[in-house]
């Protein structure tokens, strides 16, 4: 279905281009876009940029999830922590990652640390919100079970809390990925080559400054494909194998 619409889109694109009303610098041919994609793939440029971006996202997702868990567990131990965390979430959750960029540059400069801060910021708050919801909805019956068998905190966490929270973790990861991916691309377009390698946002930006329009569209295409692969294939696959199979979500 998606593929069908994609073909329609390509057809409309080509018709507009052939109509000749636009400069090829605005509407390059599909062929040129593909050619640019192929040449960038062959010299590995787009690959490395992409790997770099995904590497940052992956690290940040992992760090953000662990941090969110610690915060949420902490907030269930202490009332003060709980109210602090709730306030922090309401302060920071509405802040788009890219909006804090100027402030982050002031603290840490324009290095890779800044990118990490922005991406982790994009990951952390949705994750905390989701985990908090998950943690608070653990059925009372589970706590009777825990008391009955005198489970310790570790057993409870690994045996019950973690698997029970999985649907919430996955939902959190999905939102976090979407947010962090967008934040990262924006940050890369502003920062340039932080840490020596640019990332896919920088790829598009450098295509822009060298007026390689086909390259811009090639970069966009790659972002779309990554989005589909991660959001639809990767997450759907994990869901099928876990929470959907277990009937925890329908």
């Amino acid at each position, binding site marked *: 279905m998606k593929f069908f619409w994609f073909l329609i889109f390509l057809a409309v694109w080509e018709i507009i281009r052939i109509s000749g009303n636009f400069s090829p610098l605005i509407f390059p041919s599909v062929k040129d876009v593909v050619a640019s994609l192929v040449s960038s793939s062959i010299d590995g440029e787009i690959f490395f940029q992409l790997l770099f971006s995904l590497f940052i996202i992956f690290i940040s997702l992992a760090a953000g999830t662990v941090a969110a868990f610690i915060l949420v567990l902490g907030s269930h131990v202490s009332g003060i922590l709980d109210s602090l965390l709730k306030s922090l979430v309401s302060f920071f959750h509405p802040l788009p990652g890219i909006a804090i960029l100027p402030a982050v540059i*002031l603290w840490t*400069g324009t290095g890779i640390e800044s990118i990490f801060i922005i991406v982790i910021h994009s990951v952390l708050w949705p994750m905390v919100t989701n985990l908090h919801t998950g943690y608070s909805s653990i059925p009372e019956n589970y706590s009777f079970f825990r008391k009955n068998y005198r489970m310790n905190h570790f057993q409870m966490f690994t045996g019950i809390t973690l698997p029970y929270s999985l649907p919430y973790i996955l939902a959190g990861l999905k939102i976090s990925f979407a947010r962090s991916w967008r934040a990262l691309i924006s940050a890369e377009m502003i920062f340039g*080559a932080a840490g020596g390698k640019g990332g896919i946002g920088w790829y598009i930006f450098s295509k822009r400054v060298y007026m390689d329009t086909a390259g811009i569209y090639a970069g966009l295409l790659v972002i779309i494909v990554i989005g589909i692969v991660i959001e639809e294939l990767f997450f759907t696959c994990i869901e099928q194998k876990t929470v959907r199979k277990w009937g925890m979500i329908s």
Partner: protein
Amino acid sequence: MKYRTAAAFLLLILITSLLSCASEEKDKKIIIAEQYGLAYAPLQIMRVEKSLEKKLHGWTVEWKKLANTAAIREAMLSDNLDIGFMGLPPFLIGYDRGMEWKMFTGLCRAPIGLVTWKENIRKLSDFTENDRIALPQPGSIQHILLTMASEKEIGNPSFFDNRIVTMSHPDGMNALLSRKDITAHFTSPPFIMKELKQPGFRLVVSGEEAMGGNFTFIGGTVKNSFAEKHPDAVAALYSVIKDTIHFISTKPEEASDILSEIYRMDREELENYLTWDGMVFTQDISGMDRFILFMKNNSYLKNDIREEDIYYR
């Protein structure tokens, strides 16, 4: 059925989009874009003094200040701009990629260069892996001059490509003054003067050293379609620029009065910068041949560009 409706819908979008661009005639209106910095001083004077309006009766003149050359090119492509002022390399890149535009005037030569705050950086080879250089964007005149210099000194033009942070001149200056990870800034007046006034800040390499001679910093480009339709307007603009440059060089105090307000700078300071060694407002274009040669050799340009083709006369 669903498919057919959708296809019809898309067709509708297509037709309306084609129609809308065929129309919209904008007669007797000229839109001019410039950027940040003292190099654009003649344009600033023209803008506030309405010199062009006085010459082009019945015309509307619209000025835009855009953040970088990419934005100028894009505005021109989308038909929102007729005239743009920029460094020579971005003009050449656009021309090379098929932009239908020509350079119709030079605007100035200027002392530009790479400034650092770091004590141990005396030459380009002193930069380490962790040093970052701020400049407006890859492909800008600052970037091309940096690659020229690094080819000369280090033997590798793309040596700094992964250590560049793109920043507008004001942002770059602030980053440099904060003495953090941005260790150097390739910049132009008045930012370069302000930075060099800071204790310990020094010039690593100047534009002229990089280039091996003097060169035009900023030139004016006109879109071919506009120039064909309104050659008189382009001629008028050219002569107004000529008059304004003459005004600045003959009456720098008066010019400084006007400009100090626009640039929000002290009058004395501004006049000092305006008459700085190497700050020359002129319509003559120099250095184009060397830019073409270097950029072609290093694949910034794909086509062979002949200098005589790129000027509007």
